[in-house]
Each structure stands twice: as structure tokens, then as C-alpha cells.
């Protein structure tokens, strides 16, 4: 596999590492019951860039991503050590409101999961639970979010239709619009294109290239070409450890670790 360097996303890939830091992860250990899923992770994730997380199945990619907006806490046997500093504060600090964390750090899942409501109500959901009721304000934000998610033209005439009637790729863009509606600073995506077809995948990648201008994006992907196409930096995980983190162009052309090289050249995983 030869990744196409010219398509790498970051506005200036060679300086990706010098950008501001969105997440400063320090000595992160994560356990599910007795089993340790992440080991001593230390990494600085840059702002306004797409960071790709790659690695074989079960190596802890999703676990890591879900630590960044405290989604893992919903699991009963989950335990975490270490710090994740976001906006100057450890998001796991006792006095941090988890609701606030999740509003500022949005998430899109592997399988599109629109609510069984109308297209409009899906996007308006996050605003409604914040108590926003004014119709014109809702209308505005819904339209803006659908436009940002590049799905407005396809759904503008049927906002009242059920979201579940959309195609898989449209549902996923709707989920992105839904996440954008609450105006997060970060978008976390867990293999957002693994359940949809190649054309829809292309549209979402295009969308991510657009969104990264205003958002910090962290994306788990199974697809190394995708990481090469859209990300500015890449983290390679293996068996719960962060093996290597660097600019995507460097990871794919001149990896610093033998195990990374084995993985990206397809000798493993």
C-alpha cells in the first residue's frame, strides 16, 4: 500500500505538531474489570486537525476515543487512571460536569444511530434538551447544521420525514449534523464510514476535510487509505499501547517503529 501523501489533509502537514493542543493525555490507564484495555497512554492531540487512530481490532481505539468525552463511564465495570486535559482542565475532575463535557465534545458512532424521530427533530434534539424552544432559533440551527453536514440539499424538502427512512450514508451525515447542532468544539468519530458504501464514504471524507477548518476531529478508522487521505496526524495503537504518534505523512512513509511499519505495510493486522 502506498498512501498518497498529497491528499493528506492538514492545511500545513509539516507543522501539524506545532499546533495548539486540544487534548493533553497523561498516563492514561483504562480497565474493564480486571482487564487493562489501555496502558500508560501519553499523547497531545492537536486542535483544528484530523487525528486518525489506527490499529488492529481490539487494540483499544474505541476505548481511547470514548475516554475523550467520558462515554465509557456508562459501562458498569469501567475504571480509569490518569488525566485528560481539555481546555486547561482534567475532564475527569470531580467538579467537571459530564453533561458539559459531552456537549463540548461531540461524538459520531460506527453504526448510524438516528433517533426514531423526524429528520428535523433529530437535529433539534440536542437543543431541545438544553431547553431551547424558540421555533425560529431551532429552525436556523437545524438548517445551518444540516448545511455544515452537507446533507441540507437532500433533505430540505422532507424535514418532517422519519430519519430512519434515509440511506445509511445519509443517516450518518444526519448524525454528524445532530452532533454539530449543539456547537461542540471537538468531533469524535468511531469508524464513521465502516457501515456505509464507498460513495457515501467519499462524501463523508470530503465533509471532514471541510469541517476540520472549524473543529478538532479525532477519528478511529480501520481503513489506512482513509487515515492517509483525511488526517493530519495519526496514532497507532497495538494491544492497548500507543506505539507511535506522528504526522500522518511521516507514519505512512517513514514510521519510527518497526511494529507500525509492519501494520501499515499489511504484514500484520
Amino acid at each position, binding site marked *: 500500500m502506498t498512501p498518497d501523501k498529497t491528499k493528506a489533509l492538514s492545511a500545513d502537514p509539516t507543522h501539524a505538531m506545532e499546533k495548539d493542543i486540544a487534548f493533553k493525555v497523561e498516563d492514561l490507564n483504562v480497565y474493564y474489570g480486571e482487564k487493562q484495555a489501555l496502558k500508560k497512554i501519553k499523547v497531545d492531540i492537536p486542535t483544528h486537525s484530523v487525528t486518525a487512530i489506527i490499529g488492529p481490532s481490539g487494540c483499544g481505539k474505541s476505548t481511547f476515543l470514548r475516554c475523550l*468525552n467520558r*462515554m465509557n463511564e*456508562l459501562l*458498569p465495570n469501567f475504571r480509569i487512571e490518569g488525566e485528560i486535559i481539555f481546555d486547561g482542565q482534567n475532564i475527569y475532575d470531580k467538579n467537571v460536569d459530564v*453533561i*458539559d463535557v*459531552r*456537549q463540548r465534545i*461531540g*461524538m459520531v*458512532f460506527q*453504526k448510524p*444511530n*438516528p*433517533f*426514531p*424521530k423526524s429528520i428535523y427533530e433529530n437535529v433539534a*434534539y*440536542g437543543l*431541545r*434538551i*438544553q431547553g431551547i424552544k424558540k421555533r425560529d432559533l431551532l429552525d436556523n440551527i437545524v438548517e445551518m447544521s444540516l448545511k455544515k453536514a452537507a446533507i441540507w440539499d437532500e433533505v430540505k424538502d422532507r424535514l418532517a420525514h422519519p430519519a*430512519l427512512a434515509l440511506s445509511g450514508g445519509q443517516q450518518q451525515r444526519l*448524525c454528524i449534523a*445532530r*452532533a454539530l447542532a*449543539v456547537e461542540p468544539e471537538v468531533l469524535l468519530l468511531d469508524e464513521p464510514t465502516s457501515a456505509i458504501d464507498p460513495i457515501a464514504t467519499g462524501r463523508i471524507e470530503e465533509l471532514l476535510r471541510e469541517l476540520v477548518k472549524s473543529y478538532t476531529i479525532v477519528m478511529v478508522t480501520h481503513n489506512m487509505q482513509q487515515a492517509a487521505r483525511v488526517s493530519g496526524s495519526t496514532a497507532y495503537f497495538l494491544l492497548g499501547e500507543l506505539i507511535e504518534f506522528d504526522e500522518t505523512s511521516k507514519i505512512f512513509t517513514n514510521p519510527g517503529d518497526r511494529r507500525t511499519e509492519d501494520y501499515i505495510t499489511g504484514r500484520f493486522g
Partner: protein
Amino acid sequence: MTKPRQWIERTIEVGLFLSALLSVLVTLGIVGVLLFETVGFFKTVPLLDFLTDTEWTPLFSEKHYGILPLFSGTFLTTSIAMAVALPVGLISAIYLSEYASRRVRTILKPILEILAAIPTVVYGYFALIFVTPLLQKVIPGLSGFNALSPGIVMGIMIVPIVSSLSEDAMHAVPAGLKEGGYALGSTRLQVATQVVLPAAFSGVVSSFILGISRAVGETMIVAIAAGLQPRLTLNPLVPIETVTAYIVQVSMGDTPTGTIEYQTIFAAGMSLFLLTFVLNIVSYLLRKRFREVYD
């Protein structure tokens, strides 16, 4: 080689078909008997009288055959029961499905379901000799027999029907949908009421309708505690009689077969059957209308 096996398969198939046929035939038989006797009844009593007369006194010398008093009794006790069972059942379901830990759920759910396993005659006397006197302390005008007390007790009995089926429906909502809610900054209550509940809507409505059917059909509790006095009223504090209680009252007496008194049971039973039949159809339509497709 495969002959004996095919033969066994065939036998099983026929056996299963015959069992299914048997239950269909039994149902048809019941409806047939109901229809036959009901037709006999309407040869004596005009349908219009049956539907509009405001008195039901077939066992008295001055006979009236208006079904409305019995229907008002059924309506009253059912409404009271559902006013108890819907909120309590739904809240229990939300608690069990969205809040309780797995351990709490495995303990609480069977306990709740025991409520549905208590013989209704026990509930009946519970209403008559415990709940009614208790209510009389708060409501001075309450008769010894009334719709309120058996209605409330019936509601308690129906709580597990509503909670158990609603909880099953809510439990079946995909975890991914709930995560979608949490990821947008929802609280648990918001996820429960605004993501899970709408997604489980058809199941929840079915549980409501099943609860209503159960209340409409309930006999023993109302026969014991509501008074056996047909009365066209919506006052929950006075003695009334439900359709079912009337049927059991006549069945327990020594009414000779073929008389008009005897046929009233079937006319009342037919009305009840039509009512629950309509409820079932409504439930089916709602389920079809609101079924959400998850793959």
C-alpha cells in the same frame, strides 16, 4: 435412508397443525355459542332498548335490559385501575430499564411480577375489608361497596402487566440509540423519556392496552367489592356493577337454561367480547403504525 425421517417430519407437521386447528376451533365454538344465545336474546329485547335503556334489571319483576349501567360500571373501574396502573407501571418500567443496576433488576422484577400471580379473589377481599375502610377514613361519603376501592386494587394488580411489557420494550431499544442521546449531553432522565420511551412507544402502548383489556375483563375483584348494583353513574363512591360482575352473579344463581335471564349473560358477554376485540385491533394497528425498524 431418508424415508423414516421424512415420515417423522410429516407427522410432527400434521400434529402441530392439528393443535393449531384445535385452538381455532375452540375459539370459533365459543364465538358460535355466544352468537347463538345473543341472537336468541335479541329476539325478545330490541337492540335499541339494549343500547339506550338506562336501567338493567333483568332479575327483577319490572324488567329493563339497558346495558349502559353495566358499561358505565366497567368504564368506571377500568378508568380508576388504569389511572393507577399506567403511571406506576410506566415509572417502574423506566426505573427498572434505565436506572436500576442489573442486580436490583433481577431481584425487583420477579417480586413485581408476583403481584400478577396473586389470586384475584384475594385482591377482592383485600379491597373490601382493607382498602375500603381505609378510604372511608379519608372520604366520609364512601359506601361500603364502591368503584373506587376495587378500581385502585385492580390497578395495583395490573401494574406488573404494564411495567413488565413496557420494560421489555424499553430494554430492546438498541444501546447505540441511548449512546447517541448521552453523547449529545442528555441526562439519564432525558435519555429515558426522550430517546428510550419514544423508541419503545409501540410496546409501551401495547402494554397499556393489554392492561385495559385485563381491567375490562376482571371479574372477581369487582364482584366482591363493587356492590352488584347496576347503576348508570360516573360517581366512584357508590355501589355499581360491571359487565363481568353481572355475568358471574347470574351464573352463580340458579337461572334455568334458555330463559331470557340466562340469555342476558350471553348478550353481556358478547358486548364484552366486542369491546376487547376492538381494543386488540387498536393495539395491533398502533403497533403496526409505530413499529420502528432496527436491524
